[in-house]
């Protein structure tokens, strides 16, 4: 049973539950107290000892259900599940005539696997598969490309070599039996493949997910397919969580450095100036303040969608954030984003300002007119857009004033550097007034950009 528990822990890690050895020891201790008789209690026990968050609890619960539906390696009492699976090899054989007993008697010299297949012993079959997959360390499977290898290994373990020899021999001596054996073998292959797929689902889920996320992170945001949007949102939320964990650590720094003489004397006035209590100078740190201006015209809408989402999921780190959206004119969207779910918020923003042709000059003028005094010397202004202003007046003078008022002016452009300045792009003219200009087309670049901005306040 202990072996089984270890396999379960491996499966749990595959499902994305972080388990340390100490935790597995605790779980073992707990399990030894509650026993294996009651499945719901066992499930609760694992949830209590192993999972540390609500998400992990869910993942672990699913993993538990999946895992304990699997056949066990040791010869188990017949369960429905196994019966279903081992049905496949026999379905071909069962349709054959009743020559079973006679057939087995004739072929005394055939291998163990062949005998097992012919005798249609479902339990023995299931147990043999489970044992073979154990020997082939099936729980190490990580990627779907490994399915073939593991199927091959399991079949080897079960003695497919001998079976092939038997099959060759039988084809000559007893064609009918050989045919039956062949059908059973095909069934066996299917079953093994199924077992491997299930194991992949159990042990390889996280790896596969990591791989997929990695690809997604580097995919251009503007060209994400609709079916990936939900996944992308999830990824953005993960990024936000990571940034939050990195930067929301207590802002108190070590009280080291220079003695604050003035405060020390004041604090010790009661003792006649004898410095019992010391006061130290502290590094002054700005709270992050961000103003985000997002182009939501058709060409860059997707990117700004994710960008606004990221900024707003960062609320715990960035205490003061205001977001604006524009294409032809500019509006403030902080409240919409905060009050509604991402889908609804985006739809509302789009219906208000989206889909127009972008006019940077006019939008900047709107911003200067109504919100210019929101910018303080501590503010970072982020502008996200492709700077394609349809040959209208770019009003770079307003951008210069924004740059002068703020701590930093960052321009994120989803287009590649090569396209800047081509056609109606005003990027070169704008970039002279920006503190930082960078390309921002993928989730990874987005994360880096925001991370740098938040880090500058640390």
């Amino acid at each position, binding site marked *: 049973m202990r072996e089984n528990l270890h396999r379960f822990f491996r499966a749990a890690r595959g499902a994305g539950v972080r388990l*340390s050895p*100490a*935790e597995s020891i*605790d779980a073992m*201790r*707990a399990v030894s*107290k*509650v*026993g294996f*008789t*009651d499945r*719901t*209690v066992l499930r*609760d*026990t694992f*949830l*209590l*000892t192993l*999972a*540390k*968050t*609500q998400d992990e*609890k869910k993942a672990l619960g699913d993993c538990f259900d999946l895992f304990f539906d699997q056949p066990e390696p040791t010869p188990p009492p017949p369960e429905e599940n196994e019966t279903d699976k081992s049905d496949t090899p026999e379905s071909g054989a069962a349709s054959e005539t009743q020559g079973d007993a006679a057939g087995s008697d004739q072929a005394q010299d055939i291998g163990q696997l062949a005998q097992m297949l012919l005798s249609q012993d479902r339990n023995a079959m299931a147990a043999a598969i489970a044992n073979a997959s154990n020997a082939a360390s099936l729980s190490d499977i990580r990627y779907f490309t490994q399915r073939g290898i593991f199927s091959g290994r399991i079949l080897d373990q079960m003695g497919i070599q001998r079976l092939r020899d038997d099959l060759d021999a039988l084809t000559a001596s007893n064609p009918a039996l050989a045919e039956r054996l062949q059908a059973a073998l095909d069934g066996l292959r299917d079953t093994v493949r199924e077992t491997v797929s299930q194991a992949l689902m159990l042990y390889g889920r996280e790896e596969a997910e990591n791989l997929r996320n990695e690809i997604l992170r580097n995919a251009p945001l503007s060209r994400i397919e609709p079916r990936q949007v939900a996944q992308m949102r999830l990824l953005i939320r993960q990024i936000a969580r990571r940034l939050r*964990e990195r930067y929301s*650590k*207590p802002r108190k720094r070590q009280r080291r450095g220079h003695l604050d003489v003035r405060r020390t004397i004041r604090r010790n006035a009661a003792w006649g100036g004898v410095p019992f209590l010391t006061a130290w100078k502290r590094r002054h740190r700005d709270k992050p303040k961000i103003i985000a201006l997002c182009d939501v015209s058709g060409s860059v809408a997707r990117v700004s969608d994710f960008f606004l989402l990221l900024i707003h999921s960062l609320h715990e780190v960035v205490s003061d954030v205001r977001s604006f959206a524009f294409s032809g004119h500019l509006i403030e969207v902080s409240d919409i984003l905060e009050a509604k779910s991402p889908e609804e918020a985006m739809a509302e923003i789009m219906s208000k300002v989206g889909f127009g042709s972008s006019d940077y000059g006019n939008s900047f003028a709107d911003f200067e007119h109504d919100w210019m005094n929101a910018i303080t010397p501590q503010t970072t202004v982020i502008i996200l857009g492709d700077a394609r202003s349809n040959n209208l007046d770019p009003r770079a003078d307003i951008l210069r004033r924004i740059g002068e008022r703020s701590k930093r002016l960052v321009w994120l452009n989803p287009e590649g550097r090569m396209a800047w300045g081509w056609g109606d792009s005003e990027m070169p003219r704008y970039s002279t007034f920006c503190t930082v200009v960078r390309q921002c087309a993928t989730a990874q670049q987005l994360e880096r950009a925001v991370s740098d901005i938040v880090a500058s306040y640390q």
Partner: protein
Amino acid sequence: MAENGPTASIEAVERGLAAQGYIASRQIATAVYLSQQIDKPILVEGPAGVGKTELAKAIAAWRGLKMIRLQCYEGLDEAKALYEWKYAKQLLYTQILKDKLGEVLGGAETLHDALAQLHDFGDVFFSKEFVEARPLLQALEQPAGCVLLIDEIDKSDAEFESLLLEILSDFQVTLPELGTISAVSAPTVILTSNSERDLGDALKRRCLHLHIGFPEQKLEERIVESRVPGISQTLRKQMVGFINEVRTLDLKKLPSVSETIDWARVLVLLQAPELGHEIVKDTLNVLLKYEADIEATMPQVSSFIAKSSRQNVFG
């Protein structure tokens, strides 16, 4: 039947807590049973008002133990949570013993001797006599064991968590002047958290992690039955059904079990025979704590009442 042991004991826990008026779900009972068996603290998370603190109280009452409560807040430190020296007493004693001190030191020939004598003396003032035990130390010193409730651990600073680690894993603390103090008998430790911030992995690793969410309808009815015995069965079913409907809305603060109980009390007090449109409207402020939430719920009241009454017929 040794096989049935754990299941029976878990049921015993459930019954024991129920006798104290705490209706526990199976998972909660399993957690309590396990924490006793493998001596681990329970970290309880969940929305406000689902009975996290009540659980600790119920365990203490059920097992007849003293409950020691440590309320966490920002800025809580060692001196308030663990121990402190009784400075005033130390000062007072030195004043009183001044003469005595002179006598003791009078016999010394040289300064060196005096210092040596003073050394033995100094230890007297930093002995257990002068330690003011705060909740954590008190909990370790209870001869019969106790239930230690560390409430709203997420409110405290991250440094405070580290302070707890030694207590949680080994039931001991190390005081620089006195050495390591181990628990006389291991206390049952319950930590609660509203998930305001993520707790450290080191802390989580040392605990059983129990999440209490909103209870299922059946369970909640039993809770109301146990807490507000005077309520009629139909009204109970209706109101719990109604609250379950309210929880499907997107509100700032969803009503939790404590609100359910309060509302049940109010309805009994107003002698409402069943849930009506008027009475719900008048008492909605018991259930919802934000004006915006009440406004959002108001238009739905009629349909919710209808729904919960329908359920009543079939359920």
